[in-house]
């Protein structure tokens, strides 16, 4: 039984990482209709930023988080201003374009840093474990759960309680009329894209103590994040949160019951069944337009 709970807790911490990746993805998809296939590379860049800041400047992960958020956010801004904004009226082409950007970013890192795995130490203040009965929970993973929940809360606050968020929600629902009322939609799009990228960067930095840092590391995370967005329903923060938990836990538990590969297959089958019966995801947008 303890093994089961340990596995469930590991799933929960992966779900936390997934939540931060998926939030950015969901905002970018919800706001602009852009399926950002370079999102995994933003995660990877966040991880490399953490490695860079730790090995050259001696900064710990926690101290470098704000910096990483800004750095990856700026890269996202550059991607949006440079490429994506020209393709808003051609949504299918954005898939190809962002995929291409992803490949370019991966190869740039491979050329610049090399393809060896890199390791980042977890913050020393989060060393140690909490044991409840036979269930051992590392402090770092507990921190991840709470941190991702605060990121969720911050995003909720940003979207519903700030002027930027209100403008973003207006643009999502009616771009044309938003422009008529003085909202600069291009600026809103750029900032939303940058915010999504920044969140991916943070997720990438925080995942470094759990996995090794490689140029291709973003790919598997972004697939899971897409699953989360699909399961949760587009445009719903709550849906994204619940679906992160579900996908994270399901992956952990199925892997525990079978093995990693079969677990993966089982998760995908479960999602296919879910989408068959709830094509809009778990928390669809119910308001008529």
């Amino acid at each position, binding site marked *: 039984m303890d093994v089961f709970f340990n596995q469930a807790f590991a799933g929960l911490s992966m779900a936390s990482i997934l939540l931060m990746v998926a939030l950015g993805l969901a905002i970018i998809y919800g706001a602009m209709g852009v399926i950002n296939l370079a999102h995994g590379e933003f995660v990877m860049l966040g991880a490399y930023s953490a490695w860079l800041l730790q090995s050259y400047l001696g900064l710990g992960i926690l101290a470098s988080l704000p910096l990483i958020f800004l750095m990856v956010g700026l890269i996202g801004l550059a991607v949006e201003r440079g490429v994506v904004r020209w393709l808003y009226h051609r949504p299918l082409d954005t898939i190809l374009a962002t995929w291409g950007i992803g490949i370019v970013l991966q190869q740039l890192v491979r050329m610049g840093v090399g393809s060896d795995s890199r390791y980042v130490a977890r913050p020393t203040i989060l060393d140690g474990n909490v044991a409840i009965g036979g269930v051992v929970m590392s402090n770092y993973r507990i921190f991840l759960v709470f941190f991702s929940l605060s990121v969720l809360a911050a995003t909720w606050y940003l979207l519903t309680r700030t002027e930027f968020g*209100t403008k973003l929600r207006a643009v999502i*629902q009616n771009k*044309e009329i938003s422009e*008529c009322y*003085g909202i600069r939609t291009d600026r809103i799009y750029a900032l939303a894209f940058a915010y999504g990228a920044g969140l991916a960067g943070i997720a990438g930095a925080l995942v470094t103590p759990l996995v090794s840092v490689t140029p291709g590391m973003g790919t598997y995370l972004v697939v899971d994040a897409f699953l989360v967005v699909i399961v949760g329903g587009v445009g719903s923060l709550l849906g994204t949160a619940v679906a992160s938990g579900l996908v994270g836990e399901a992956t952990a538990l199925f892997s525990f019951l079978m093995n990693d590969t079969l677990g993966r297959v089982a998760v995908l089958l479960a999602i296919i069944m879910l989408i068959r019966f709830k094509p809009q995801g778990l928390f669809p947008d119910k*308001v008529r337009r």
Partner: protein
Amino acid sequence: MLEASALFSYYGKSPILQDVSFRVEQGSIVSILGRNGVGKTTLLRTIMGLTDGIAGNLSFGGKDLGRMRTCDRGRLGIGYIPQGREIIPRFTVRENILMGTYARTDGKRTLPDYIFELFPILKEFIGRRGGDLSGGQQQQLAIARALAMDPKVLLLDEPTEGIQPNIVRQIEDVILRLNREMGITIVLVEQNVPFARRASDQFIVLDKGRVAVAGTGEELTDEIADEFLTF
């Protein structure tokens, strides 16, 4: 204050408006009439910069609108109340009105009190979602949103279309009050000839994308109505 000369407006390569010229004086009410599909809505959309391109001149308060982005046109004080209202369905009434203030250049984000005096129902429903209001209430909300920006001119596209008669009357009265008491210039796309005649200082009848007849309110005769407005 709002002036067009030899104005062409395009969707794709098709010119929807052709060689349209008009002049809207400050403080006046101008009605734009015509059958369905003659370009009335396109004319308002052209003023907001929502068509694919224009040729000719279009200016507001001496400023050239032609090259200006839509959001900057809003910031000049042009309040657009489109056909079908286009309020934001998932926004509350308050958020919808607040949205109007984003076009203000003084940065104020307070909702003017007189809006609720004009439309008491909006005060009552302040926390409801825009999508849950009736058509007439949505129309009032759309006007309130435009008023929140403190507009110099309002562009209203068939504000009484598909709305229950008692609210039609109320909306017509509000339009007149806004013009007479607050000096807001009104450009009104209208199917209702008697109201257009009663309210407007000037009228423009469009036909196939061109100005067919224009004149002062009293000159809008039944003959003109029969020729250009009946089907």
